[in-house]
C-alpha cells in the first residue's frame, strides 16, 4: 500500500462519487420538471466546484495515487473499497465533473418529457463515470464500468431519436459482450496476485501466455469502448439517436474510458503482451484514422459526421498510447481531453441546430450562417479545433502524437498523415455548407440566434480550446509525473527481461 497517499480527513473522492447519487435519490421523491432541472444543475455544479480542490491538492511530482481512501469491503475475497487518483486520471475526473453542468444546461429545453427521470439518469451516470476513473480496486472498477450501461441505455432508449431501440440495444449488447471476458481476466489476475488492488497486479512476472490471454480480454473490452476500427459500429448508431446530453457524455467521457483502461491496465499489468501486440494495434489505429476520415467525408447527417470523426480522433489516441514513448503517451492523454472538449462542443452545436430545425441533415442546415452569426462563430472555432488547426487544442495533441510516432516508426507516422488532411476536408466541408451554403438554401429566415444560455454553455469550451492550444504546459505538467513513471517502469521491465534472456542463454 506504499503506492497510496492516503487522504486524511475529508474523503473528497468518495464525496465526489456519491454526491450525484445522493442528488439522484432526491429526484426519486420530487418529480417536478422545473425543480428537476434546477436541482440537477445545482448538484452537478456543486460536484464541479468541489472537484477543484483536487487540482490544488494534487502533487504532480509524485507518481503515487493521491487522495486515496481504503476501506475493507468483502474481506473473504480480498475486495476493498480503494479509490485514488494520479496524473493519468486527474484530468479525466475534472473533465467529467466540469462537463456535466453543461450537459444539464444543454438539456434545458431539449428534454420536455419525463424531465426528472432524465436528470436522474444523468446524475447516476456521473457517479459511475467518476467511479471508473478513481477506482483502484478491480471489482469496484468493474461495478462502475458495467453499471454505467443501465443509465446510458435508458438515456438513449427513452429520450433518443427514431431508431432509438435499435441503437440502444446495440450499444448495450456490444459493450456488455466485450466486458464479460474482462471479468474472467480480473478473477484470473486475482488468483495469481492474491488481491484485487490494481497497483499490486502491475509489473508481476506473469507468464507470457497468461499475459497474452489477459491482454486480449482487456483489449476486447476497451477497444469496443474506444471504439477502435473493427469494433466501432455501435458508435454512429448510438451517437445519432442519443439526445444531445447523451451524445456529449458518450463522446467526451465514455469513449475515454477505453483508452484510460488501456493506459491504466494493459500497459502495466501485461507489459510483455503489450510490446508483443503493439504493432497490429498501431496499424488498427491507422486504419481507424483513415477509415473514420473517409466515412465522415461521405456523411449527410451532421451527428454521424462527428461520430465518424470520433473514430478517427480516437485512432490518434490509441496510436499515441501504443508507440510507448513519452511524447506519444502524453499527446494521447492530451488528445483525450481535447476530443472531450471539442467533440462535446460540436455535439452541443448540432443539438442547438436540431432544436431549431428539427433535423440533423446537412442539406437542411445549409446557409444558417446568415441568420445565426454567433452560432457559426462558435462552430468555426470548434471545427478548426477538430482538425487540429495551429493555436487550438487538438494541434498540440496531434502534434505530440505524431512526433511520438515519428520517433517510433517513420512509415507508421507517414501513414497517419492523410488522416489529418482528411479531418480538415470533412470539417471544412461541413463548415462551408453551414456558414455559406450553396445555391439551393432552404428558407431559414425564421431562425433565431443563440440565446444567453446557449452562449454561456459554449463559451467555456471555447476557452479551453484556446487555453490548451496556446498554453498546454500546465496540463502536461499534471500528467508528466505519472506518465514518465509508467514509461520508466516499462523501460526497466524491458531491460530486466533482456538481462534475464541473456542470463538464460
Amino acid at each position, binding site marked *: 500500500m506504499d503506492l497510496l497517499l492516503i487522504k486524511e480527513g475529508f474523503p473528497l473522492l468518495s464525496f465526489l462519487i456519491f454526491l450525484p447519487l445522493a442528488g439522484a435519490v432526491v429526484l426519486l421523491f420530487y418529480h417536478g420538471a422545473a425543480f428537476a432541472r434546477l436541482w440537477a444543475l445545482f448538484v452537478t455544479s456543486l460536484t464541479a466546484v468541489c472537484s477543484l480542490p483536487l487540482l490544488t491538492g494534487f502533487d504532480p511530482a509524485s507518481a503515487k495515487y493521491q487522495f486515496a481512501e481504503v476501506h475493507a469491503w468483502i*474481506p473473504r*475475497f480480498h475486495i476493498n473499497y480503494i479509490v485514488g487518483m494520479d496524473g493519468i486520471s486527474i484530468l479525466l475526473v475534472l473533465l467529467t465533473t466540469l462537463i456535466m453542468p453543461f450537459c444539464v444546461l444543454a438539456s434545458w429545453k431539449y428534454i420536455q418529457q419525463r424531465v426528472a427521470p432524465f436528470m436522474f439518469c444523468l446524475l447516476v451516470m456521473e457517479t459511475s463515470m467518476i467511479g471508473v476513473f478513481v477506482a483502484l480496486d478491480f471489482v469496484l472498477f468493474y461495478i462502475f464500468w458495467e453499471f454505467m450501461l443501465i443509465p446510458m441505455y435508458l438515456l438513449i*432508449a*427513452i429520450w433518443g431519436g427514431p431508431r432509438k431501440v435499435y441503437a440502444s440495444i446495440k450499444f448495450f449488447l456490444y459493450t456488455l459482450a466485450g466486458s464479460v471476458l474482462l471479468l474472467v481476466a480480473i478473477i484470473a489476475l486475482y488468483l495469481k496476485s492474491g488481491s484485487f488492488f490494481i497497483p499490486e497486479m502491475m509489473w508481476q512476472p506473469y507468464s507470457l501466455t497468461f499475459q497474452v490471454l489477459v491482454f486480449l480480454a482487456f483489449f476486447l473490452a476497451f477497444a469496443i469502448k474506444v471504439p477502435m476500427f473493427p469494433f466501432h459500429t455501435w458508435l454512429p448508431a448510438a451517437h445519432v439517436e442519443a439526445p444531445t446530453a447523451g451524445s456529449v457524455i458518450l463522446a467526451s467521457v465514455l469513449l475515454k474510458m477505453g483508452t484510460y483502461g488501456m493506459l491504466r491496465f494493459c500497459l502495466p499489468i501485461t507489459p510483455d503482451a503489450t510490446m508483443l501486440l503493439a504493432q497490429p494495434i498501431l496499424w488498427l489505429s491507422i486504419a481507424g484514422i483513415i477509415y473514420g476520415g473517409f466515412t465522415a467525408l461521405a456523411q449527410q447527417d451532421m451527428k454521424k459526421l462527428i461520430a465518424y470523426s470520433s473514430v478517427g480522433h480516437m485512432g490518434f489516441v490509441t496510436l499515441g498510447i501504443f508507440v510507448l514513448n513519452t511524447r506519444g503517451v502524453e499527446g494521447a492523454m492530451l488528445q483525450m481531453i481535447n476530443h472531450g472538449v471539442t467533440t462535446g462542443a460540436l455535439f452541443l452545436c448540432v443539438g442547438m441546430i436540431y432544436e431549431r430545425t428539427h433535423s440533423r441533415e446537412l442539406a437542411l442546415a445549409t446557409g444558417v450562417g446568415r441568420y445565426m452569426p454567433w452560432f457559426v462563430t462558435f462552430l468555426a472555432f470548434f471545427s478548426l479545433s477538430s482538425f487540429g488547426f495551429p493555436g487550438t487544442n487538438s494541434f498540440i495533441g496531434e502534434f505530440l502524437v505524431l512526433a511520438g510516432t515519428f520517433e517510433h516508426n517513420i512509415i507508421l507516422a507517414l501513414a497517419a498523415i492523410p488522416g489529418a488532411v482528411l479531418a480538415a476536408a470533412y470539417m471544412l466541408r461541413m463548415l462551408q455548407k453551414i456558414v455559406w451554403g450553396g445555391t439551393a438554401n432552404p428558407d431559414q429566415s425564421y431562425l433565431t440566434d443563440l440565446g444567453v444560455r446557449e452562449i454561456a454553455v459554449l463559451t467555456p469550451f471555447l476557452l479551453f480550446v484556446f487555453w490548451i492550444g496556446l498554453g498546454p504546459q500546465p496540463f502536461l505538467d499534471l500528467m508528466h509525473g505519472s506518465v514518465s513513471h509508467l514509461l520508466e517502469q516499462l523501460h526497466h521491465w524491458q531491460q530486466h527481461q533482456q538481462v534475464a534472456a541473456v542470463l538464460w542463454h
Partner: protein
Amino acid sequence: MVILPELVLVAGALALFLVSLGKTPSEQTAKSVAMFFGLATFVATLLAFQSQASLFYGAYAVDQYSQLFKAMIGFSLALLLILGQNLKGISPSVRPEYYLFLLLSVLGLMMLVSSVELIAIFISLELSSFALYLLVPMRDDRTGIRVQMEAGMKYIFFGVMATGFMLYGMSLLFGLTGTTYLKDILAFLAQGNLQPAVVVAVLLVLAGFFYKLAVFPLHFWVPDVYQGASNETTAFIATLPKFGAVALLIRFLTVPTGQSSFLVELMAVLALCSMFYGNLSALVQKDIKRMLGFSGIAHAGFVLLGLLSLNPDGYGVAIYYIAGYVLMNLACFLVISNVSQQGENLRIEDFSGLYQRQPVLAFVLAVGLFGLAGIPPFVGFMGKFMILTTALRADHLVVVCLAAINTAIAIYYYLSVVKVAYTVDPGGSPAVKVHPAIQLTGVVLVVAITLLGALPAKFVDFASTVVQTLP
C-alpha cells in the same frame, strides 16, 4: 420453541382447514388467515434463529444451517403472500384449500432443511412436493383447453420419476452402509469403506434435487408447468423449493464418494448444459413465464457451478446466489401477478409502456431483470462474480469462460423485456392500478436486491461459516 416455525405452519394449515369446511368459504377470511400465518411464520423463524437441538432420535436437526434456510424461506413466504394476495388465477371457492396446501408445502420445505435422516428427508420432500402438485391444477379453467391439468400431470409424472431415482439411491446408500442417518453414513464412508456403488447412490439422490432445482437434464417440466400454473403458483414454484434443493444438495455433496473428480466433471457438464440450454431457449420465448422458466434453468446451472468446488466457500456462495435469485424472481413475479388483470398469462409485449402505466412496477421489473442478467450493483452480479471466482480457483477455466459468455447471451432476452416496458408506446393498454402495500413490497425488494448486492460480506461469511459446521 425450537420448532416454532413448523408449529406455526401446522396451526395455520389447521386453521385454513377449518375455514375450508364452511359452506360458503369467505375468500377474505382465507386470505387474512393465510397472511397472518405467513407473517407469523417469518417472525417465528427469526425467533427460532439461534435455536440448536436434535429431535426425534437424531433424525431432525435444528442448527444454524437449517435455521438460516428457514429464515430465508419464511421471508420469501411472507413476500410471496403479499405480492400474490389477490390470487387472481384461482377460483374463490377453492382459495382456502389453495392456502392450506401452500402452507403445507412450505412446512415440508422447512422440515426438509432440518432433516438429517434418509426417511425423514424423503417424507418432508414428499409432503412439500405433493402439496405443490395439487396447487398447479387449482387454476381456474380460463382457456377451455385445461392447460393447468396438463401442467399438473407433467409436474407430477416427472416429479414422481425423480423421486423414484432418489429413493433408489437412498436404498443403495442404506444397503452400503447399514444406516439411514446421514451422520453415520458419512462416518462409515469416511473410514474408507468406499466402492463404486457409492457414487451411483449419491448421484441418484442428487438427481431428486436436481429435479427441484431444474438442472439439465431434469428440467423438462419447467416451461409447461411455469406456463400452465397460475402466476402466483409459478411464483411459488420458481422460488421457495430452490432453497430446499440447495440445502439438501449441499448436505449430500458432503458425502465422501471417493470419485469426487468424476462428480465434479459431471456437474460441470450439467451446469454448462443447463446454462446453454436455458439461455438459448429463453431467447425465443414470447410468454414471460416461460422465459423466466428457461432463465431459471440457466441460473440453476450457475448454482451448480458454485457447488462444484466442493468446499465451504463454494457452498456459502451458492447459498448467497440462490437467496439473491429468489429475491430477483420475486420482484419479477410481483410485477407479473399485478400487471395481469384477471390472472391470465402475459406475453412479453403485454408489458408495453409499463413505464407509463405504472412507473413503480416498471422500475421493480427493470431492477429484477437487470439483476437476473448480472449487471452490478445488484445481487445477481455479486453472486455471479463470486461463483466464477470460486470456480476459477478450483481451476475450471474453460467452464468459467463459457459461463461468462452465457451471461452475454442472457442479457438479450432480459433487455428485450425492459425495452418493451420502457420504450414501446402503451397503445390502448390501460393503466395498472396496484395497492400501495404492493408498491411498498416492490420497493423493499429493490432495496434488498441492491443492498445484498452492494454489501454481501456479512451474508457470505455467515453462510460459509455455517456450512463448515455441517457434519
